């Protein structure tokens, strides 16, 4: 029996995720999924992804805005675009995900094969050391379940861990903004008080339990995997940010957070201006 202490898996009391296992990523599986993803991305979501030429040839931390609730369609579109631009055999991309994603049966297996690992600082460091890049969504469930009226807002909820991880590992941040993901279903309210009242924040590390409307569930507290509406998805990869260069060896994390979120908010609003009609494009 191993006497090694079990790595921390977060504060959730109900879920115990596997530790970061980079071997879970299956290039052959990813390659087999790409045609399916392309069909869905092109025909169903009429996706556009631009800006990969800005990504430097080194491990980076992609920082995105999370949308679409449990569906996260823009994540799959981004992974499709990344794996075709960089090639499956190129620099691997690992997405840091919530314990719920990596722990569930079936969905968890699929996610791990696509390169999703449990979100923890150790996971990110392991990926960077192996020469891979990381995709994070600091907004997490709060952002993924933000009200529809805030669909063009960056909602990172003052979470700064991603900055510390990028800085500690000497990697640049590459902001990635996306629109359309939050038009695939509708969130009516904030839901943070409800989550707290039912103890979801401590039990499941879920900070938000809003009322949503989706197919086939109709109105629902929170969200379940659903059929996303065929909203047009646009993704823009932005210029890299070198935290050490801009903020020095000991950054003021509040200032760094304000800067990164300001860059992303400006980029997201600019991307949103391309929308002619919501959902349709």
């Amino acid at each position, binding site marked *: 029996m191993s006497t090694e202490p079990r790595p921390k898996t977060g504060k959730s009391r109900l879920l115990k995720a596997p530790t970061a296992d980079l071997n879970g990523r299956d290039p052959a599986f990813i390659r087999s999924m790409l045609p399916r993803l392309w069909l869905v991305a092109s025909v169903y979501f009429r996706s556009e992804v631009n800006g990969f030429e800005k990504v430097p040839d080194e491990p980076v931390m992609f920082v995105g805005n999370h949308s679409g609730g449990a569906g996260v369609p823009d994540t799959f579109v981004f992974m499709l675009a990344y794996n075709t631009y960089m090639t499956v055999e190129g620099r691997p991309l690992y997405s840091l995900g919530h314990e719920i994603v990596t722990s569930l049966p079936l969905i968890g297996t699929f996610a791990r094969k696509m390169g999703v690992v449990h979100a923890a600082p150790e996971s990110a460091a392991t990926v960077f050391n192996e020469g891979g890049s990381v995709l994070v969504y600091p907004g997490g469930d709060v952002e993924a379940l933000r009200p529809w009226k805030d669909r063009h807002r960056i909602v990172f909820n003052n979470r700064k861990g991603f900055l510390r991880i990028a800085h500690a590992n000497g990697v640049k941040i590459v902001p990635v903004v996306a629109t359309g993901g939050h038009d695939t279903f509708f969130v009516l309210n904030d839901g943070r008080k409800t989550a707290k009242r039912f103890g979801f924040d401590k039990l499941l590390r879920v900070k938000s339990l809003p009322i949503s409307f989706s197919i086939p569930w109709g109105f629902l507290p929170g969200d379940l995997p659903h059929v996303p509406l065929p909203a047009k998805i646009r993704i823009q990869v932005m210029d890299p940010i070198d935290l050490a260069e801009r903020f020095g060896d000991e950054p003021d994390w509040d200032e760094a957070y304000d800067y990164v979120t300001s860059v992303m908010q400006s980029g997201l*609003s600019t991307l949103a201006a391309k929308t002619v009609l919501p959902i349709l494009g």
Partner: protein
Amino acid sequence: MSATAISRGFVRRPVHEVAKYATDPHFTLPLIEGFGRFEYLHDLPERGHQEWDVFLTVGTLHFGGGVDVDLTRERHLIWRSLRGTRHTFDLSVEPVNDGTLITMEMTLFVSGQIMAKLAERAGRGIMQRHLDAAVEGLRHHLEWEVS
């Protein structure tokens, strides 16, 4: 028939600094990506007025045309259309606490009845998203890129 969109943003800089930049079309228009085409043409006979070509790129449309930019009002950048899409624009800055509130307002005039109503609804949303982007772009530049 008309449709109006308004967007506001708070800039963490004093109003006199923001006004110096935000009310100058040479500074502001290049920052607004949605304004895909803009060009200073010449000064107009009326003092403090300039003629510009300003266009928003909206999918397959180019929304805008020749405008009369009025630089006479303090803390405002105002224009009205002379040619092309009939519209007005007003950017204003005012002090709020220890920062500045930027407000952008655009009004579109559409001819007709039923189709105009539909165009007006769509147009308002399009203008709103462009104004939101303009406010955020200007805010970011003033807070982080201008010394």
